[in-house]
């Protein structure tokens, strides 16, 4: 399984602010290695953030999202102690899912 991500979620008034740091090379497929061979594209394609069985953010990403992606978003309807879950899948079929509780 891929490296864990770091998720921080906190209340700002009645809004939940979520910040995620994911570990992923996000290879574009355009870079070449020392031998001159193209490094195959390897990047996160879909991201899903859920809270209480509900999707709070869905994303589709391309190779142009930076390596070790950072994502920050906000939603209403959560409260301190609730669980936020973030999942991603990449173009090689690898995936990762982590969760945190809202502080």
């Amino acid at each position, binding site marked *: 399984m891929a490296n864990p991500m770091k998720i921080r979620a906190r209340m700002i008034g009645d809004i939940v602010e979520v910040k995620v740091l994911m570990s992923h090379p996000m290879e574009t497929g355009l870079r070449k290695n020392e031998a001159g061979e193209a490094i195959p594209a390897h990047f996160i394609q879909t991201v899903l953030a859920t809270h209480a069985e509900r*999707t709070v953010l869905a*994303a589709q990403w391309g190779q*142009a*999202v930076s390596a070790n992606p950072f*994502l920050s978003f*906000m939603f209403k309807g959560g409260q301190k102690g609730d669980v936020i879950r973030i999942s991603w899948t990449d173009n090689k079929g690898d995936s990762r899912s982590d969760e945190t509780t809202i502080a």
Partner: protein
Amino acid sequence: MEQGRRRFLRSSGGLIGALVAAGFIGIDEVRAEAWNAAAFESKDLDQLIRNLGGSGAKATDAIEIVAPDIAENGAVVPIGVASKVEATEAIAIVVERNPNPLAALFTIPPGTLPALQTRVKMAETCNVVVLIKAAGEFQYAAKEIKVTIGGCGG
């Protein structure tokens, strides 16, 4: 089994996308979005809008783009987006001069603020276009970001 389903989801991405856009499937029912290959392979903004199911986009100043004017390195350019357009349901970050301009596409379910931050790669100085979809219509704003070649490490 899993592979087959993933392949099916990938190839039917366009169909699901269209059904969502047409309101036939609610956001909550779509557990994981299929990857819109056509959108990510679009070579320019017009083609991209068509691949997202639109026919054109209106310029607006109701989309705020928070980003530096100069990026010290094109590998990581921080982009903040905040849409003041009512009922914003989708946000796309597009880097005009990238080989494939669409960098990221976000679906904003009800209850989620149409505001987010992420980081994208920029091949060269160009406009970063933020495209939003609200009430079935596409609108956009753009900001030019200069990408520099650094002098040395720092």
